[in-house]
């Protein structure tokens, strides 16, 4: 509700205040009237008590004393005995001047007049008494009559005074009663007016409260019920007062708050469901325990991790490996004392089958405020593989550290700085590890500047393994030849160049010796085989000449001996030629270059065309065979030897069926030459590739037994391998690998 709308609306508080003021004024007026009436009543009562009643009593006493005065006066005037009329006269005198007959001037005046009359009566009685004492009784009686007559009118005077006092008393009573009656009427009227005012106030209050408070509040209550039941924002009537507007605004805010609370509740419920799902479906073992470690709840992963079926009467402490229980107890104590709330550690748990499982355990204490924890929640992740890997890594690290060969790792992003080096590297360069880690390639390789070092590292980063020979300035200051391997290595998102360093001074010396030895051997083989052919030709030629010239004189044995000698010479010549070819594979080979295996196979088949035709063999392949990196002439010889062997060692009861195929494996092609020949027993699979090794007698099959040795030599020169797969009598499959183009 905008505040300006609220400020424009009339204020219920002001209305109520004005109403309360008016109400208070009316009540005060009513109360004032009642108070006035009450005060008047009280005043009348007080007046009656303090004035009217005393006045009436005063008059009653005066009336009574007047009555006594009449009596005393009459006695004084009429009594025969002197002591009687004298005593009455005295009493009448005392009474006449008593204050009870002096409260009114007229009364006082007339009573004093009566007193004077009594004095006169007494005087006459005294005179009459003196006359009677002097024997003049008749005159005394006359005087007494005179005194009696003098007194008699006074009785009327006193009686009138009594009547006046009675009238005064009655008048006082009537006056007082009239006043009390008026006050009573005023009180009654005030009460009626107050009742009327109260009725009007009650009605006005009911009307005002109903209009300004009850109806809006009922509407608000309905709106709040709607809000509570999740309804839409309630449509409220136009507020009549600012306070109701504020209330409506508050209800709107309450609705929004409830809506948000509902959303939060839904979100919370969804979160709880997700948590429950996570709890149950989590691969991490989650367990909830009480303060003493008694398991209260655990998920399936926990049961699986420990090989348990349930968690009944299960304490976490019993699951902990005995060696870890001390540390676990310390952690528990620290959590109970409030030193820590969370602890993470690698722990060993004992499974149900008594095997040990390593876990990454995180334990969190659940506590209220600063009170000791009343629950613990633990999350355990099986890290047995990681621990095993770490152990293996530590083992490898130990191996690498203890390796006699220097192993290093450079950081190409830091100018080739040594990022890691094993102890052998430090010994190699004769520096400490800390110093080693500050050095770059130019610091130890006098033939490489920083620019070339960058190039070398880029080359290493863009190839699998780069091996080069260079020179290092090593411990002692000398410069020695080394072989350095460099491979790209990515770790933690960063490229590195890693490899080994190998002191090749001995190897170079050996290689040099071998090279010279090979050269000598090749020279020897060439010379020997070339020079050996001439005597053989002479032996064969003269044996043939001897047979032609002296054949007639020789018997059968002689001819046979000559034939044996010639065959031996021929076979020796073949051996020498094969040996010569074998020795020339490495020395007379062409550089390796992309070569068509299809073409090489076709040429080999062409060379073997006669044998294929005569044997009825069949040579097939799925064209085209791949391009490989090789020496074309040697590849033809390789395929020709293998195909020739397949034809030569064909089975007697079937025609040779030879299949050539190639399969790409990584950077190499694996080429297979399969036949259905006589096969090779497994125990001969290695022997057949040795030079001059034959599985059959010389007469059984032609050849010197050097063909497969040549094949092996050619494949190895191409960087490949060759092997045979055969179970015997089911044919053989020769396989070799060649680097793909």
């Amino acid at each position, binding site marked *: 509700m905008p505040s300006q709308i609220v400020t424009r609306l009339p204020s219920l508080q002001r209305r109520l205040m004005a109403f309360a003021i008016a109400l208070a004024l009316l009540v005060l007026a009513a109360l004032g009237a009642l108070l006035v009436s009450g005060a008047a009543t009280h005043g009348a009562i007080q007046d009656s008590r303090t004035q009217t009643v005393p006045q009436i009593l005063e008059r009653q*006493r005066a009336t*009574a004393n007047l009555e006594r005065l009449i009596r*005393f006066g009459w006695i004084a005037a009429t009594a025969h005995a002197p002591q009687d009329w004298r005593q009455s006269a005295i009493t009448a005198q*005392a*009474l006449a*001047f*008593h204050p*009870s007959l002096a409260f009114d001037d007229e009364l006082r005046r007339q009573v004093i007049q009566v*007193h004077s009359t009594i004095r006169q009566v007494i005087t006459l009685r005294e005179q009459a008494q003196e006359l009677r004492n002097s024997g003049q009784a008749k005159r005394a009686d006359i005087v007494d009559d005179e005194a009696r007559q003098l007194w008699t009118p006074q009785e009327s005077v006193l009686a009138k005074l009594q009547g006046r006092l009675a009238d005064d008393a009655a008048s006082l009573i009537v006056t007082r009663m009239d006043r009390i009656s008026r006050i009573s009427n005023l009180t009654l009227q005030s009460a009626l007016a107050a009742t009327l005012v109260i009725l009007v106030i009650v009605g006005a209050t009911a009307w005002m409260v109903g209009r300004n408070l009850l109806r809006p509040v009922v509407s608000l209550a309905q709106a709040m019920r709607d809000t509570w039941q999740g309804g839409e924002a309630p449509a409220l009537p136009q507020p009549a007062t600012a306070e109701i507007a504020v209330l409506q605004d508050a209800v709107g805010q309450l609705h929004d708050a409830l809506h948000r609370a509902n959303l939060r509740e839904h979100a919370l419920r969804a979160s709880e469901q997700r948590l429950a799902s996570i709890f149950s479906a989590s691969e991490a073992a989650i367990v909830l325990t009480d303060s003493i470690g008694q398991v209260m709840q655990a998920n399936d992963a926990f049961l699986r991790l420990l090989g348990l079926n349930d968690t009944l009467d299960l304490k976490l402490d019993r699951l902990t490996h005995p060696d870890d229980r001390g540390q676990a107890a310390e952690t528990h104590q620290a959590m109970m004392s409030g030193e820590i709330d969370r602890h993470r550690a690698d722990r060993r748990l004992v499974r149900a089958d008594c095997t040990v499982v390593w876990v990454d355990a995180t334990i969190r204490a659940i506590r209220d405020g600063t009170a000791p924890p009343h629950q613990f929640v633990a999350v355990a992740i099986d890290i047995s593989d990681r621990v095993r890997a770490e152990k293996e890594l530590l083992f490898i690290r130990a191996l690498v550290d203890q390796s006699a060969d220097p192993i290093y790792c450079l950081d190409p992003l830091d100018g080739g700085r040594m990022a890691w080096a094993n102890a052998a590297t430090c010994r190699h360069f004769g520096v400490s590890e800390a110093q080693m880690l500050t050095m770059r390639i130019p610091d130890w390789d006098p033939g490489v500047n920083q620019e070339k070092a960058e190039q070398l590292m880029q080359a290493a980063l863009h190839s699998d393994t780069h091996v080069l020979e260079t020179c290092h300035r090593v411990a002692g200051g000398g410069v020695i030849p080394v072989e350095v391997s460099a491979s790209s290595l990515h770790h933690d998102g960063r490229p590195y160049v890693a490899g080994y360093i190998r002191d090749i001074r001995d190897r170079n010396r050996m290689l040099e010796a071998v090279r010279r030895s090979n050269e000598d051997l090749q020279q020897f083989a060439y010379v020997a085989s070339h020079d050996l052919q001439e005597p053989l030709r002479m032996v064969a030629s003269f044996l043939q000449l001897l047979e032609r010239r002296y054949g007639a004189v020789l018997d059968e044995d002689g001819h046979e001996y000559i034939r044996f000698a010639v065959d031996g010479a021929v076979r020796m010549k073949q051996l020498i030629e094969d040996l010569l070819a074998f020795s020339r594979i490495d020395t007379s080979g062409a550089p390796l270059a992309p070569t068509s295996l299809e073409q090489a196979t076709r040429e080999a088949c062409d060379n073997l065309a006669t044998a294929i035709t005569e044997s009825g063999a069949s040579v097939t392949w799925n064209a085209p065979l791949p391009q490989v990196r090789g020496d074309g002439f040697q590849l033809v010889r390789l395929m020709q030897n293998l195909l020739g062997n397949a034809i030569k060692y064909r089975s007697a009861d079937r025609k040779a069926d030879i299949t050539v195929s190639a399969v790409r494996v990584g950077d190499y092609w694996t080429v297979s030459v399969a036949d259905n020949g006589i096969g090779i027993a497994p125990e001969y699979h290695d022997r057949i590739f040795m030079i001059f090794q034959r599985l059959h007698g010389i007469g059984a099959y032609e050849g010197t037994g050097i063909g497969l040795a040549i094949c092996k030599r050619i494949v190895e020169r191409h960087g490949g391998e060759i092997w045979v797969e055969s179970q015997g009598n089911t044919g053989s499959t020769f396989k070799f690998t060649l680097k793909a183009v």
Partner: protein
Amino acid sequence: MRVWLILLGLVSIAGLRPALADEVTVGITSTAPPFVDVDADGRLIGGFNVDLARLLCQRMGRTCSLEKASFPQLLTRVEEGTFQVGFANLLKTPDREQKMLFSVPIWRSTSSFVARAGTPALDPVKARQSARICVVRKTLQEAYLTQQPGPAANVVPVSTHAELFQGLRAGHCDAALLPTVQGLSFLASPEGAGFDYSGPPLQEPNVSGNVHIVVTKGRPELLKQINDAFAEINRDGTYRTLIARYFPFDIL
């Protein structure tokens, strides 16, 4: 031991205190009838003041000890507190109000001269110049006469109204100034024969007016009880009966 005795004494005093507090010593002037009647041994046997004192004590529920005293003695003892209550037909004056507490009026009084019957009525202002006048000591009548001109020897102070009437009869004084009702019994008695009121009562306010009971200054609660008790007997008619027993008319 001494301490225990002191404590025992204190406890005893504390225990006795309510009884002492309920007991009231009432002083009554040894005046003439009808206010006081004494037997031959001088003991109080009745009279208006005696009966009124007993009646009020009964209504207050207090034990009263009535003691006779002359008018001057009564004023002194009420002032010093040895009389807690005094009945002496006292009018209220500012000086007396400084020394004691006054009850509500119990009756109204005037003062009159009493002299030989047949003698000319005394003029109050000139009475001291021409006659020896008996008055009770320390009364307002004595004070009035002292203020009037005349020889000091003409003021004859006596201690009680009985002495005052005796003085009249013996001729020690020519007249007496006393409360009007006080003279009624004397004048009505054979001893008062030949005596009469001399003129009307004095119109001086100092010697006429309301008569009060006095209470010692330190006992306002006792005064309140007396006022309440008097209101009660006045309301139920007991007081009027008492007045009618001793006076020929209503003196209230």
